[in-house]
């Protein structure tokens, strides 16, 4: 029986199975959004392409479930563990177990908050603060007299919400731009729509909507249309993610600018996993390739969008 604390002394770092196939345990957060599902799909497909056996578990948005899954991967003696931390805190204990069991860990999405950086090999993913910044920078450059921004936040307390807010606020600090109302739309279309409806009635002048993801932006578009205004013209809209529906709206000019947050990091992850299992050195931070889209760029990019 594999004890959680003392196992792994027998095998070295490159403890690939006898058939040479690498086994990866991936503890996914959940399937709370289309973005996440695309992320999952990408990882599953890439694993198959790379010949890596994938053990996958869905934590239903609960950190404790992720921890349980990681613990069970440790017991099942997988070769490498990867996961996207829901929160940056609270991973020390289980990562320590993995380290003791000599199983390398790769983080995706974001880093964990720990003094001990030896707990994981590398992390691969987007920088949410950077995304917020990009949105703010674009607005600064293209404000054209706009002043009043309303913000549709993601789920209160969720990391992307906090960081995208922070990055955006940093970027527009010191300008004429002002966030006049901010409220959570829980990352959903109905949330975005409901909040926007209320804003349209309670905020006298709205020039810009900044939504923490495409879905809330799409909801806001509906509300703006219902109010008899033209989204993208009367009110500028900036969102983050660049999922297909968002890109379609961007191409149609209803959204003005989207900051990409790329879920398709499967290939990069598998490559890293192979290196890590082989014991090669990897950089401690790998940033996914992410860009931004304007309406014109969206028109050309749209046909290639898979998710």
């Amino acid at each position: 029986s594999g004890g959680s604390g003392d196992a792994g002394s027998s095998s070295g770092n490159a403890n690939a199975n006898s058939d040479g196939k690498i086994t990866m345990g991936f503890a996914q957060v959940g399937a709370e959004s289309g973005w996440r599902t695309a992320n999952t799909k990408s990882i599953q497909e890439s694993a198959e392409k790379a010949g890596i056996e994938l053990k996958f578990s869905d934590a239903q948005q609960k950190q404790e479930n992720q921890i349980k899954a990681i613990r069970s991967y440790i017991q099942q003696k997988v070769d490498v563990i990867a996961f996207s931390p829901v929160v940056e805190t609270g991973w020390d204990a289980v990562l320590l177990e993995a380290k003791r069991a000599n199983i390398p860990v790769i983080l995706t999405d974001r880093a964990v908050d720990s003094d001990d950086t030896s707990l994981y090999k590398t992390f691969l993913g987007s920088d949410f603060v950077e995304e917020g910044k990009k949105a703010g920078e674009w607005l600064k450059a293209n404000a054209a007299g706009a002043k009043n921004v309303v913000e549709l936040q993601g789920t209160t307390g969720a990391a992307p919400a906090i960081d995208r807010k922070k990055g955006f606020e940093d970027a527009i600090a010191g300008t004429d731009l002002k966030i006049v109302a901010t409220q959570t739309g829980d990352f959903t279309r109905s949330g975005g729509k409901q909040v926007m409806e209320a804003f349209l009635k309670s905020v006298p002048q709205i020039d810009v909507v900044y939504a923490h993801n495409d879905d809330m932006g799409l909801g806001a578009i509906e509300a703006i249309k219902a109010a008899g205004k033209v989204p993208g013209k009367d009110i500028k809209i900036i969102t983050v993610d660049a999922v297909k529906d968002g890109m379609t709206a961007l191409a149609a000019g209803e959204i003005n600018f989207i900051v990409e947050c790329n879920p398709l990091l499967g290939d990069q992850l598998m490559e890293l996993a192979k290196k890590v299992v082989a014991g090669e050195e990897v950089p401690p931070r790998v940033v996914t390739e992410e860009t931004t889209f304007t309406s014109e760029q969206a028109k050309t990019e749209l046909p290639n969008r898979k998710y």
Partner: protein
Amino acid sequence: MKNRLLWPVLALVALLILNVVVTPSFFSIRLQDGHLYGSLIDILRNGAPTLLIALGMTLVIATRGIDLSVGAVAAIAGAVTCTHIAAGGNPWVAMGLALALCALLGLWNGFLVSVLGIQPIIATLVLMTAGRGIAMLITEGQIVTVDSPTYRQVGAGFLVLPIAILISLAVLGLVALVTRRTALGLLIESVGVNPAASRLAGVRARTIIWTVYVFAALCAAVAGLMISSNVSAADANNAGLWIEMDAILAVVIGGTSLAGGRYSLTGTLLGALIIQTLTTTVYTIGIAPEITLVFKAVVVIAVCLMQAPVRIRVRQGVPA
């Protein structure tokens, strides 16, 4: 019963007044593209799904039951309809399919509760969990966006007033009529108050229980259609998330006891309106997301203290 409803009404009025004080234009309603436009209209439209689900929940609760699966059922209804439409299907057929499937799910809940005798909270918890999975299975985890003007009408359309609220009010009227004009109301209450006595009196408790669960599922299905049609997309994961809690809260604020028995449809209507007004208030008066919940907690407590049975008894001169 009349006295009991006084307090929810006052709570609703108080909330509305708070809104007007902060946003003077709150009550203003104008005609926009041939339909009414204003905050009050938003409250009605956005509150329609909660009201509808709460209506089904009221009858379930009256039989001493509870239905946690309504949110998942709503998600399934949206998922079925949108995937069918997205695949080129007729919106009416799609909606019919969704309603039929959800009626089946209601039958399933009723079966677990009335035939297997499983406690309602657990019986419906099964579908609450699995149902979301089914909805996601149908949409493959993606948000399915559709572009069907017909379908849009259900949740976002207007016949001067939002169609969604018209549907919900129609169902309310229908339920009121059916439970009052037929003996359904009496039988539901008697099963809820004393199942043993009802059985000996020859009441078909099983049929009654089955009926209310199917009805609750149908209400949830229509609500699910409204939710997804409102944004022209099916979000299997988030549609109707925690709406069961809102619905139960609406029922309870309306004065119906979770212990079963006597229920009040008017109370449920008021409860649903209070909840939606509360949500809109939070957006309108600009309460920071961090303290939204504290604000809601205070309002909920205030409402229930206002209508506390003890208060009423004191008023009538009979202390606890």
